[in-house]
């Protein structure tokens, strides 16, 4: 890789060990993918929940955070992905005893780097929307999909520590989604119906994600008759990233780099695959619980917006959860505050639900809290969560928000 004068100084350690190590790591990855040089980024978005970071990651963070401020401060705004602990609820959720102490140490280290503790995976909705052509270092697969696909910004997956490296150097290796050619669609999908609600958009992302061949196989979707809205594209992008390891998508006539099918497609794009409502139903049916008893209903992954929270409050208003069934809804601290000010949070809590603030369910030591609370059958409206949570010992089912609420109120998931 070509290093400019400043990058050579960083590599030589002239700007301190944290930046030297960051550039060294980025150079290994850049060379691996054939990057010719680095590109400056406008902001970074860092995933560092305690379960993922672990003790080894924490030791690394604390070692780097102990350097003088001039050496450790991030050089571009660096916001954070959801935390692993909502301190109000750590005991109630029966998170492991070490979780809160580890969390405090991670937060202290991130604050020492100068990270902005936004604690959200929907930063594109709640912190600052990316703009067309902007180079970024985002660290959540859903946020990367939204930034690339919906906003036309440019980011690869900068997983966990890689986003910290980007914050410390202010740049990333120029490969993948930073290059025009890699952003063109190789796979085409044509809808024969119009998705009507958020779970269907997530399921669509799941169907397409399963059909894609790799990170480098970008999809374009034809046949969407009207812009579906931010939350729909959020669920679509989150599921694409989860099932397909896909970093961006095009929707013809909707997303900025797809004014036409030809503009979004590579010359060698494959023939289109048709997707109908039956494909989404089959996809949902691929998740099945052991029986129809519901232990837990979760709205998360991605964190839910104020509009989704309002819908949930409306469905739960004046109702009570079934005995033995829990309901959790994860959102940002700012949206939770707004929801409380507007009386929405109170409706959810009066019904027996719980709002998780600044966290996301699967990042909260999901295996341990599932075992501690006896949660096994989990219903969610998030295709992404349904995909992830099976590995943590849950039996997930995928249903619309309305069916999820019905399941929470009755304790059973009915067809």
């Amino acid at each position, binding site marked *: 890789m070509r290093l400019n004068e400043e990058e050579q100084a960083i590599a030589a350690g002239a700007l301190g060990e944290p930046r030297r190590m960051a550039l060294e*790591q980025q150079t290994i990855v850049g060379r691996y993918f054939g990057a010719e040089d680095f590109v400056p980024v406008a902001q970074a978005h860092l995933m560092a929940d305690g379960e993922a970071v672990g003790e080894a990651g924490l030791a690394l963070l604390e070692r780097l955070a102990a350097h003088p401020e001039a050496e450790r401060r991030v050089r571009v705004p660096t916001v954070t992905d959801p935390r692993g602990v909502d301190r109000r609820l750590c005991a109630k959720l029966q998170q492991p005893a070490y979780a809160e102490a580890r969390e405090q140490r991670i937060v202290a280290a991130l604050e020492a780097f100068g990270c902005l503790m936004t604690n959200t995976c929907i930063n594109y909705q709640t912190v600052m929307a990316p703009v067309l052509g902007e180079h970024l270092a985002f660290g959540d697969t859903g946020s990367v999909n939204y930034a690339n696909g919906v906003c036309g910004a440019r980011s690869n997956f900068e997983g966990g520590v890689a986003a910290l490296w980007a914050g410390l150097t202010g740049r990333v290796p120029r490969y993948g989604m930073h290059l025009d050619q890699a952003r063109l669609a190789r796979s085409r999908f044509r809808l024969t119906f119009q998705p009507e609600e958020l779970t269907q958009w997530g399921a669509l992302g799941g169907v397409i994600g399963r059909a894609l061949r790799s990170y480098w196989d970008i999809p374009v979707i034809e046949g969407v008759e009207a812009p579906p809205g931010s939350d729909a594209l959020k669920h679509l992008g989150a599921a694409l990233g989860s099932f397909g390891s896909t970093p961006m998508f095009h929707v013809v006539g909707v997303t900025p780099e797809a004014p036409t099918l030809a503009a979004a497609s590579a010359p060698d794009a494959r023939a289109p695959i048709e997707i109908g409502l039956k494909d989404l139903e089959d996809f949902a049916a691929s998740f099945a619980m052991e029986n129809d008893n519901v232990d837990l209903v979760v709205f998360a992954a991605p964190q839910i917006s104020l509009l989704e929270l309002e819908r949930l409050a409306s469905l739960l208003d004046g109702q009570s959860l079934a005995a033995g069934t829990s309901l959790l809804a994860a959102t940002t601290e700012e949206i939770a505050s707004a929801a409380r000010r507007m009386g929405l949070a109170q409706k959810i809590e009066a019904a027996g639900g719980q709002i998780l603030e600044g966290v996301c369910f699967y990042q909260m030591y999901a295996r341990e809290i599932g075992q501690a609370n006896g949660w096994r059958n989990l219903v969610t409206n998030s295709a992404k969560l349904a995909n992830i949570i099976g590995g943590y010992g849950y039996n997930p089912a995928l249903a619309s928000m309305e069916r999820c609420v019905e399941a929470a109120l009755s304790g059973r998931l009915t067809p």
Partner: protein
Amino acid sequence: MTATYWAARAMGPRVIGEALVATDGFSARYDLDRLKGIFSRPSHRLFGQSYVGKILILDRAKGGVASAWMFNEMVSSGLAPAALVMNRTNPVLAQGAALAGLALLDGFDQHITALVESGAQVEVDPDHRTLKVLG
């Protein structure tokens, strides 16, 4: 039977070990019980099997960014694979392998999961971008 396959991309140290092969994708968060060192996702073909010390040969990277942290913790705790070999990887697995010092190969001109059987002794040599089946 011995054979040598060449990868388009490679990083990390040279290692020799026993192959564990499946046509599935891979994500540390989605697929593993990292406390026990086994595949924990019921739908994964390697469900219940230990990956510790094995050379994992799988199809492609799947979603999730957590592997970038998790490989480091897995190596630190002694519950890591010896190397990862894939048809196609993604930035997250490369970032995680770089931090953890894990060997990583990807980009073969044939489906690598169809060419090696679980239990085979294999050598991963990133300097030469090769995967050798030793027998």
